[in-house]
């Protein structure tokens, strides 16, 4: 998959734990782990919006395209 998810980078920048983010956006830690490891096949816009709101960033900061 050429799409890289940089949620862990943003989490480190914001000094936030995975569990706190999962609780804040209303998904399980397991699902957040799937997203971070790149196993996810799709991300809902609502989830993306919630992550951007919590981490105070743009979708481009979280998702990266590497061909």
């Amino acid at each position, binding site marked *: 998959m050429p799409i890289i998810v940089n949620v862990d980078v943003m989490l480190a920048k914001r000094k936030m734990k995975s569990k706190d983010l999962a609780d804040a956006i209303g*998904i399980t830690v397991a699902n957040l782990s*799937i*997203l971070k490891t790149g196993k996810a*096949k*799709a991300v*809902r816009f609502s*989830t993306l919006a919630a992550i951007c709101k919590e981490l105070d960033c743009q979708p481009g900061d979280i998702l990266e395209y590497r061909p």
Partner: protein
Amino acid sequence: MPIHTSIQRFQKIHTFFNGLFIFWIIFTIALIPLAILSPSTFKFTIPLELKEQADTFTGNLDSSLNLNNFRGQLSFENGPLPSTFYYHVGIIFIINLFLIFILLQLKKITTSVIRKTPFELANKNRLKYMGIALILLAFFKPIVYPFLAHTFNLPLDSPNCLTIAKSIKVDLLGIDWLYLTSGFVCLLLAEVFRVGNELKQETELTI
């Protein structure tokens, strides 16, 4: 329809399949002693000593009936087995094994439906195996019957056999269309379950 009603209905179907499965296993196992014990000839005799009783009989009896005929014995004896006995028992045994396999798959599928995980990949495989077993059963009679009959030099029940090669016969009219159609429906359902499984995985991996 509420989900719990559907699950309750499936629990009843599951119980039915369980009962049917146990019945078929007992029936199949019972064929073994039947095949072993049937050839032994048995004979039992009922002595008829009605002479004395007839002497004391004073009721209205037809005068043409000679009571002396009752003196003697009444015996029962089983005749020789037909030559096709083991052939038929063997065929029933093999067909039962197929049916037990199909019932086992159905039992497992209903169990997974009760567990609310019907679109698992195992169910696709179970349906595929069921379909193959049903198609084999459909062709069992037209191909295996004549083959066994020829091998064991037994007379064939069906006169519709077509000789396709020297001493190889195929009973084309003997194809069981119900089994064949059910088999293809099962294979189609297996494909539906495969797609269902892919959709399920995609939904599960959508965050």
